[in-house]
């Protein structure tokens, strides 16, 4: 059993990164751009996550929202939800944090190559999905038709507005969005939950993979719509959230039945998720 290990291989040791830019996305969300002190790349795949450390506060798992096609830095988009994420929101340019990872399997790029893609993002589910969408847009010739559906609760909760505009006007993507409800009549777009966009799209179920990221309630309804469109269960891909303390398959917090979400996940096909209890 003897394993030659040194303290330097500590599973808890983060690399140090500096914030080089902070942009506000909404009342509760900001996007942070980071550069590692050692100048190295993060080396992630879309759909992977990192553990962000603020020393004295703790760690939290956050998806990488930038695409690996973007070099030299990486971005994390963060909703202020609790102690670490609120503290991160108080940090500005020049502040240092610890980063461990990237962790998790990420989206199955090899499977997706050459296929038609249907992206479905609910709220901040766009954070992890944005990495893949931008990756696909940057290597557009490798993929077939691309359709993106984005839904959030109200116009105020829309995030990455420039990005949404770009996608909306792009000839390389069919982009549709909706909001659940509107406070006044300043919003001219679709109103209704995200499933109301499904009748408006045309996809070839044989060639299409749906990549769905959002809150647990959204999965139940969106998966039903995908199945109705004729997508096979292993053509529906989702990313699941769990409590995660280590990211390396030790702490046990991320278990879904016998599956460790930080190791085998966070990206799963619906065919896999269906066989798990307590998954969504």
């Amino acid at each position, binding site marked *: 059993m003897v394993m030659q290990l040194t303290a330097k291989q500590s599973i808890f040791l983060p690399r140090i990164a500096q914030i080089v830019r902070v942009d506000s996305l909404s009342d509760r969300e900001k996007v942070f751009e980071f550069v590692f002190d050692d100048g190295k790349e993060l080396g992630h795949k879309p759909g992977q996550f990192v553990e962000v450390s603020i020393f004295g506060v703790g760690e*939290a798992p956050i998806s990488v929202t930038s695409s690996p096609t973007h070099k030299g830095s990486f971005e994390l988009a963060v909703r202020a939800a609790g102690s670490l994420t609120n503290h991160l929101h108080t940090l500005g340019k020049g502040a240092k944090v610890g980063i461990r990872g990237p962790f998790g399997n990420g989206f199955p790029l090899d499977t997706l190559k050459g296929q038609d893609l249907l992206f479905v993002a609910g709220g901040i589910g766009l954070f992890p999905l944005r990495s893949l969408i931008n990756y696909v847009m940057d290597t557009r010739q490798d993929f077939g038709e691309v359709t993106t559906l984005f839904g959030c609760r109200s116009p105020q909760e829309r995030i990455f507005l420039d990005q949404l505009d770009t996608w909306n006007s792009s000839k390389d993507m069919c982009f549709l969005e909706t909001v659940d409800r509107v406070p006044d009549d300043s919003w001219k777009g679709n109103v209704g939950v995200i499933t109301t966009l499904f009748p408006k799209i045309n996809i070839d179920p044989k060639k299409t993979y749906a990549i769905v990221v959002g809150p647990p309630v959204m999965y139940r309804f969106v998966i039903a719509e995908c199945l109705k469109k004729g997508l096979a269960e292993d053509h529906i891909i989702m990313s699941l959230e769990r409590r995660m*303390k280590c990211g390396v398959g030790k702490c046990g917090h991320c278990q879904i039945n016998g599956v460790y979400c930080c190791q085998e996940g966070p990206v799963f096909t619906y065919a896999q998720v269906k066989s798990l209890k307590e998954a969504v």
Partner: protein
Amino acid sequence: MQNRVISRQDLAGFVDDLIKTKSAGDVIGIKAQGNKFNFGPLKSATELRLDYDISLLPPKKYFFPQQETVLKYEVEPAFKVEPVVEERMLCIIGVHPFDIRALQLFDAVYGGNNPDPNYFLKRNNATIIGVDCLNPIPKSFAASMGTNTVEEGFDLMLTDLGGDWFVTVGSNRGDSMMKKYGKGREATNVDLEKRNKVRRDAAKKYKTSLKMKPDEIPALLDANWESPVFKERSATCFSCGSCVMVCPTCVCFDVQDDPALNLKGGERYRRWDACMLPGFAAVASGENFREHKEQRFRHRMYRKGKYLLERYKYLGCVGCGRCGTSCLADIALPADTYNLLKEGK
């Protein structure tokens, strides 16, 4: 490797030698603690209680301490982060076979793809001297789990033959320790048969048993996800987590920061955590994936009887009986639940 037989006196001399020379590192042994037993630093062989029934806490605490610093950081004057990995050389005397089996599961969990130096820098240098359990507690069902004896995972295994001790040698390290000490004699087939009889007699003393073969548990669980047994049995659960805290196979932890008072630095530590506590699977968005106690209770039963086996090839329960003994509601013992499921109740 040659098994040996040594007298009580020579065994005491062997232990005192280890304590004095520290040739195998700091010596830890099973000792009395009030009217119970626990592992602790050994000052003399006379403290050893190899006749013990169960230790309050399993010996995993020496490789995976209740609380362990894993990082030190400074934010002022300069930004600095360093791993903290305590390396220790230990000799643990008096480990029961089922606790040895539990350590084998730990090795699998803490090894694998991302081996954990905090665990292995203590575990790799450890000498394990086991002892066969001749006085099982009423809640232990190790005999029916096949964990009342082990063939590997120790350097030496002691069996009380009444007058003398049989020493089963389990590793080259154990072999050279015995050879170096030199006392006693080589074991014969007659001695070996005596040892086996002592073990067979001890196996009969177990008052609790699993009413099936252990390898039937996964299929039993597969067929019973919806069984009312989980809800009924967990109705009186206090969600206190005691069953997890005493368990030799519970591997999970939480990570927290402890800033120094001047806030210029501090430590990050990990500590034991328990899937029976309500917040274990709660996430910041407000979801709690095992919000209800019956979900947590069921998860623990599946974890012990199926999930860990499928992942690491070792069952997550070794039948030591500690959980059942420490549970105020008397519902924690996996064998009780599995037996109920088997009876179809």
